[in-house]
């Protein structure tokens, strides 16, 4: 294996793994999917992939959803997804956000992570995830609105318990 692939791995894998954990809610499946995506990228050849980051995210996302449908154990595993942070509120907020993300439909989850974590443009999301370009904005807006509602509910509930 060449140093070039080591560079690709070091650059792409950590972010891809976190994205797939957030999207798929199963750390083990995310690890499998991330590794599979990288192996597929190698088989395909870097010179044949136009934008590697987005390509890996799409391939990994498909794999995560495929495995999730097979395993049917999302809820139990999601409960163990860890988070870390410096302050209690920050940690709790992040946990709420991730949990809220987990309550979105599959496609919305993927689009939100692609837009805000990977920084893909609407056009890139449309192209890679095979969504009509006109509906990307609406999908994102619906997802964010839903996230806001769930997140707010979580914060209120946590405040009420203090």
């Amino acid at each position: 294996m060449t140093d070039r692939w080591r560079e690709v791995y070091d650059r792409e894998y950590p972010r891809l793994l976190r994205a797939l954990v957030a999207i798929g809610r199963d750390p083990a499946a995310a690890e499998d999917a991330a590794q599979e995506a990288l192996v597929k990228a190698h088989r395909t050849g870097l010179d044949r992939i136009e934008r590697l980051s987005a390509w890996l995210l799409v391939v990994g996302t498909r794999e995560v959803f495929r495995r999730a449908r097979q395993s049917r154990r999302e809820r139990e595993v999601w409960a163990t997804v860890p988070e870390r942070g410096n302050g209690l509120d920050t940690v709790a907020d992040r946990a709420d956000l991730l949990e809220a993300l987990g309550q979105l439909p599959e496609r919305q989850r993927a689009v939100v992570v692609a837009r805000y974590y990977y920084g893909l443009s609407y056009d890139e999301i449309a192209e890679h995830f095979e969504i009509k370009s006109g509906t990307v904005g609406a999908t994102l807006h619906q997802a964010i609105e839903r996230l806001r509602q769930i997140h707010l509910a979580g914060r209120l509930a946590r405040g009420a318990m203090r």
Partner: protein
Amino acid sequence: MTDERRDDEILGRALARAVETIDVNETPYERSRLVVRPLRRPMLPVWQFAAAAAAVVLAVAIGSWLASPRQAAEPGPVAPSGSPSPTPSQPATPTPPPPFTSPLDHQRVYFARDGLPPVGMHVAGIGTQATAEERIASRLGALNPRSGVTPPSGASNAYPSEDPAVLKVSSVRIQGDQATVDFQLPASGAMGRSAKGSAASLGLAQQLVYTATEEPGIRRVLFTENGGNPMTIDQLVLDKPLSREDVFGYASAGSTSAAPGHGATTGTTRTLITRTTVDQVALGLARVVIETDQKKDDPETYPDFNVTVAQNDESSNRVGGKWRLVVTVAHSQDRTTGTKIIDATPLRSLVASAGPSGSVVYEIGLDDLRPWRTALLYDPVRFVIDIGGAPSSIFKVNAVYSPAPGASVGRTFTVSGIANNFEANVVVRVRDSRGTDVFTGNTTATNCCEPGGSFELTLTLPGSVSGNVTLEVIEFSMRDGSVAQLIRVPLTVR
């Protein structure tokens, strides 16, 4: 940008930060599938294929010219049950090589364990053939459930149950420390029939690699199927030689650096006794305890000890296993010097002998180089060398032994393990499924740092806690308060 759009962006960025801070167990590149799992390149275009073929022909021609005398001496593929045909240059009745003899039990096969490295088991009548190739084939053949061998308690066998006339080892070739084993399979991929999913695939790969490399002198094995095609186990393609350390399931191999004890190099001669246990302190863990006759009254004068690691040459040291931990204890004596055969994965032997300058040297023979750690305990002074444990409960030189991952616990339970933390401080935290801390406490290990010490903390969770929780054992960095070492153990509270 509208206020609404700006709000969306703010929430999106917060979400991105939340995703970025998800703590994941990253697989290092060296253990990624890009390296461990073989790569199938896409079909080459015709001109590239022609160029590659020409290059291969040229390389073979040059290689055979350069290496022809040596190649003639190398063993070719050997049918496991056949015998070589005499050739005109050989004596009419070739003398078979003397069988390899060892005090260790090499009549062994390995079975997979869930979340743990594989475990060896004695099977009478295998691995006794005259040649290494035949011994490897006979051990692998015993993995077939139809051979009548059943795994030990807590282990499983993902080898396909198939007529041994249809699925069998067709050839074994040995070159240096590497074996190449070709299986005859009824269909491509048939080895993975009973091993679906990544855990089962890895388990079967562990069984095959450990069993094949049980042969002394063999460290790596390449598996092929039906005449040299890369072997596949479900989604796993085994097209490169694998060592035990490639498949044992730990994030990294054990350290090859020396572990100093920082004790006194001179002083009263201490009398030592040793104890070994396997799978008792924790599953997958071997513990070697060297106990001195020194009580706690003067803990700073314990005899110095030093642990080094060496790959063992099994042809010259037949009790040392694949790897040896060598422990030297200063100003001591052991009245029971000699060799003790253990043969319980991963421990093979413990050899005690008198060392230089009044020291005692212990050589611990091991099956593989899984992560290991040392600890110092008092009253009386004891040196503990722990090898392995549950892979998910180990981080660098820290380990949690109890509770085991996935255990069901009551609201009151005890956390124990080995820590090598600054000022021996061990922080224990329990979080519920929402990420809320339901317990935070700390305890002190028996020693720090290098060697580490053992710790134990009994904690009680609030009455409202039940279901899935995560136990975290943490060392915070003294420099900036960040998490320096973290072990997470998923538990269920009854």
